[in-house]
Each structure stands twice: as C-alpha cells, then as structure tokens.
C-alpha cells in the first residue's frame, strides 16, 4: 500500500518505504532515543551483512490514505520515559503530516530496550 492524493497538477503517490525512512530519521532526531530496534527477520539479515536497513524499527501500515505508525525504540538511560514518548509521538505526527501532507492516524511507541 502507499499513500495517494492529488492536486490540480495530477496524482501524488508516496510509497510506504519513503514514509518509513522519514519516520526513522525523525525518531532518531528525538532527544532520548538512542536507536530503533529491528523487529523483522529481513532487517536482522541485512544487519548481518553490515548494512543498516533504512526503515529499521518502523512498522508502517497505510489504509484509506492514512498512516498508522508503530515504533520500536531503545531509550537512553536516565531519561523520563513519559516525556520522551510523548514528544516522540508529537514530533512524528507533526513532521509526517507537514512533510508528506498526509494524515497520521496513530503513533504507537514500544520501548524495547534501554542503552546503559
């Protein structure tokens, strides 16, 4: 699936991968997030060959031209989990809507580890 829209010049399609890359970049820029953890076998395989998958740790589903985001994050030790999660959600939602022009329906954050 991909996100579709159109303006007077014609149709615009944004692939899921493009959006996922964007989300990964935004998430990594958030204070307190050290890394995103891979949840997929294909990602782990790529890592074996020393290649960092561009959409690692981001699960994106698009339906009816709306995005549903799941993030698997590793936090820095000693930060307020609550504060990081809420800023992460807000910044992903805002930036994706702003940069792609599409609607983000939900952002779920899963903390899978803490970097000591």
């Amino acid at each position, binding site marked *: 699936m991909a996100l579709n829209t159109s303006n007077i010049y014609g149709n615009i399609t944004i692939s899921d991968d493009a959006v996922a890359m964007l989300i990964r970049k935004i998430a990594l820029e958030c204070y307190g997030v050290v890394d995103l953890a891979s949840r997929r076998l294909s990602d782990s395989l790529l890592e074996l060959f020393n290649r960092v998958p561009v959409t690692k740790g981001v699960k994106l589903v698009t339906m009816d031209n709306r995005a549903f985001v799941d993030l698997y994050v590793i936090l820095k030790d000693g930060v307020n989990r609550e504060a990081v999660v809420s800023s992460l959600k807000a910044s992903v939602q805002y930036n994706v809507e702003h940069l792609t022009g*599409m609607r983000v329906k939900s952002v779920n954050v899963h903390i899978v580890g803490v970097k000591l």
Partner: protein
Amino acid sequence: MITILNDIDVRNIFAGAGVNLEINKSHIDSLNVFPVPDGDTGTNMLLTLSSALREMESVQSSSLADICQAISKGALKGARGNSGVILSQIFKGMTQVMSEGNTVNTKSFAKALKRGAEVAYDVVTHPKEGTILTVVRMVGEYAVKVANKQSDFLEFFRKILQKGEEVLASTPEMLPVLKKAGVVDAGGKGLLVILYGMYNTLAGIDMQPIEQEEGAPGTPKQTEFQIDKHNLEEINFAYCTEFFVINLNKTTTISDIDKLRDKLNEIGDSVIVVGDLELVKVHVHTNNPDKALGYALTLGELDKPKIENMLQQSREFKKELERVSLKEQAIVAVCTGEGIDSIFRELGAEATICGGQTMNPSVADIVNIVDSIGAKNVFVLPNNSNIILAAEQAKELTRANIVVIATKNIPQGIAAAINFNPEASIEENTRAMQKAAENVRAGQVTHAVRDTEMDGLELQTGDIIGIYKQIVAKGSDPDEVAIEVAGKMTDDSTAVITLYYGEDITEERANALVEKLQGLYPFYDVMAYYGGQSHYYYYISVE
C-alpha cells in the same frame, strides 16, 4: 419495455424527479421532527435538485458524461442543509457510474444507486441508521439484485420502489425520535419521491401529490409546526457555519480537504466537508466559526459564508413556545366535517383531529396533536365510542396530562366543550363536562349500507334510518326520519333541539326542517347548524 436510457432520457428522468419533488415538497417538510430546523427537508432537497437541473439545462452537449457532471456539480453548489448535501452526494455517486458509458441500463443504474449510497456514507462522520442513508443503501443493494434478472426499467423501478417503501416504513423503528413524532424519515421520503418522479417519467404517468396515508386521515392540516413542544433539544454548538471554498490553492491536495474535515470534527459536530479540487462545501456546527474559517482559508478562497446563531434561534423559538403554551388547559376534539370543526374551534377547542365513524385516528395522531398544543392539561373529546380507547392509550405516550371525557358522539362532545371553563380547576371542568355529556341525548339520521334486520326493523341498502340508542325509525326521506327520531327523543324536560346537518343537506332544507319541528314543538327552541359531516344527514341533540 424500456431497457436502455440515452442522454435525453437521463435528462428527462431527473427533470421528472424535480417536478415530483416540487409537488410533494410541503408533505416532506411536514415530516420534520427536529425542534430547531436549520431548514426544512423538502425545501432543502428541492433547492438542491433544482440547482442540479439548472446546471444540467445549461449544458448543450449530448454526451452523457457532460450531463452527469453538470448534475453532480449543480447539486453540490445548491446543496442546502444536511439532507441537501447528502442528496448531492448520492447524485455525485450515481452520476460517476452513469457517465461511464453512453447509455444506461438497469444494471448500471443499480450500480449507480449503490455507488451513490457509498459516497453519501463517506461524507457523514457518524452515519445514523433510519435516515435517508439507510433508504438509499438498502434500495441500492436491492437494486443490484433486481437488475441481474430484470432489464426492463419499468419493472425494475416498481420493484425497488416497493423495497424503498418497506425500508421507509421501518425507519421509525430505527430512530426513536421518528417514532416519538410518529413520522417516517423526511429525507428518505424525499428520496423515494425523487425515484417515483423518475419512474413516472419513464412510465408516462402524471405526477401525483402523495396521498395522506390510508387509515390515518388524522394527518392534521396545520402541520408546519408539528413538533414535540415538551422536549426541546439542548444546543451544544452555537453557530451553524456554512461556506464554500473556491479557487483552491494549486498545492492543495485531496488529503488537505480530509484534514480540514478532521480539524472541524475537533471543534464541532454535524460536520460535512464535500467536494473536489474545484469546489468544497463545508457545513459545521461549532462554537468557533473563526477557527473553521481560518482552517479553510489555508486551502483556498472563501465564498458565500453563512453563519447562523442557533442559540438565538432556539431562544426565540422557546419564547414563542412560552407565549403559545401559557394555557394550563386546552381541549382537543375528534370530529369530521368542516362545520363541526369550526363549531368546536369557536367553543374554544385548541385543535381538532379529523376522524369519526369510518376513519378512526390512530393513537399517534392524537399524541401528535396533543404535544403540538403545548398545554399542560389537555381534555380529549373522542366523540365516538371507537376512539375512546385510543384516546386513553395516548395518555401514556405524551407528557401532557390527558383527561379523556368519554363522549360517544358529536352532540355530547359539543355539550362538553360548551361547559369548559378555562378558569376552573381540572377537577371542576372534568365533572362539568362529563355531566353535560351525560345530559345530552343524541340521535343520528343516516342511511343503511347493507340489507339486514336489526332492532325489529327490516333494512335495505339505501334506507334512511334514525338512530337514538338503537334504530328507531326508517324511511326514505331524511327530514321525515329526523322528525320521527326527534319525537322519540323529546320528553317533558326537553328545552332545546339542535340539528347539525351534513354535507348532503342544503341550508334551505335544514331551515325548512327547523320550521317544521318548531311547528310540532312550539315550546322548545329548535336550531340548526352546518356540520358538514359525511354519511350522516343529521345529528340531533336534545337537552
């Protein structure tokens, strides 16, 4: 047999729909149940449809796609109120499918209806069942089934219209507010009227105003303000805001329009955002019309903004109500005939319900009228032994306190109404009216409708019979029978004989009878009034 519609047929059926809707507009308006009307359903739908028709007529081309596009665009431009907007979306969906080919057959028409339903569902944030949406969805689904077997448009329309009637009849079961008001959904009715208009055009039938429902002749005349005055809805959002966004920015995308809808949903309800990259129509009830306009300004230019203060409307409405409902007590009489009707009104009846021997009003009719008066205590005069029970039933369905004075005929009812005193207490009035009703002797003169033997008299169809408790006289001339009945009814305590003559009797004839009776009974007062009732030549009242 019509299997294919070309561009001219399509023009014709939509035009026919417009004609039929216009004829039945006021009937649909009368089904409106909401206390603060932001417009009336029938009128709104008609304005929407006629805008579509204007746009359609301005298109000269014979290409079906052009015509369809004009209908869709015209409907959107002219859409008023919720029902209008939903109708415009139904048209949008229908025309999308219809414009795919050069002609339309039953299959594509059914598909068009179904698509119309889908598009209509999409624009409403919280679709309610029991409205026009339900009707169009179920008719659309059924139409697809029918179209598989039926390629003749006439038969096809007959089937889907029948289905439509069924669905419409069940709307009160789905929406409590309809049930309370005792009406079917106005929007759904409007849609059926449109489909009927299309059918009539194809079948070459003249457009007909909707007949009042059978068995419910009580559908009142003063239907404009038929609402439950005991139950006003609270208003959460004050401003009904409506505008168009035109000349959209080049960078505006479809999803920006979707975002606008999301944002409006955060600040209000009844949100409708429909349109495409050329024109967007917005309708929202909100407390922040400034924000609504502000959001929309980021998409393009605004046009024809309309902001109405619904709080003020509601306040004025309530004030109006208070003025009307100052009355503590009121009378509602069931009667038939314009003469009797005006007699009751002169005697202080707040409203009358049309009904009588052959057409008993339903409980819902009575509840409707009682609620529309807005008085705290309502005396109901059933004026027929068959209606007393319905009146008693109505007690439980309305918030007004109903007192049923068990009047069994018109003379009793009139006597009771005469003795009504708006200043007196409820108990006093009840007693006085009941007593008055009991003291009246009532006789009727009518004609036999079948051969029978009753009360020792052999009757043939068409015989004129006089009734006083039982059948007491038989003859061929109403006047003679009336004199005979009056003779049986009078005794030493009689003071007044009153005649109410029916629609079949002229005034001269009634006056002649009065003189005859006066001659026979010089010591009593004899009077005649025009009753206008059908079937009964005379009601005779003796006190």
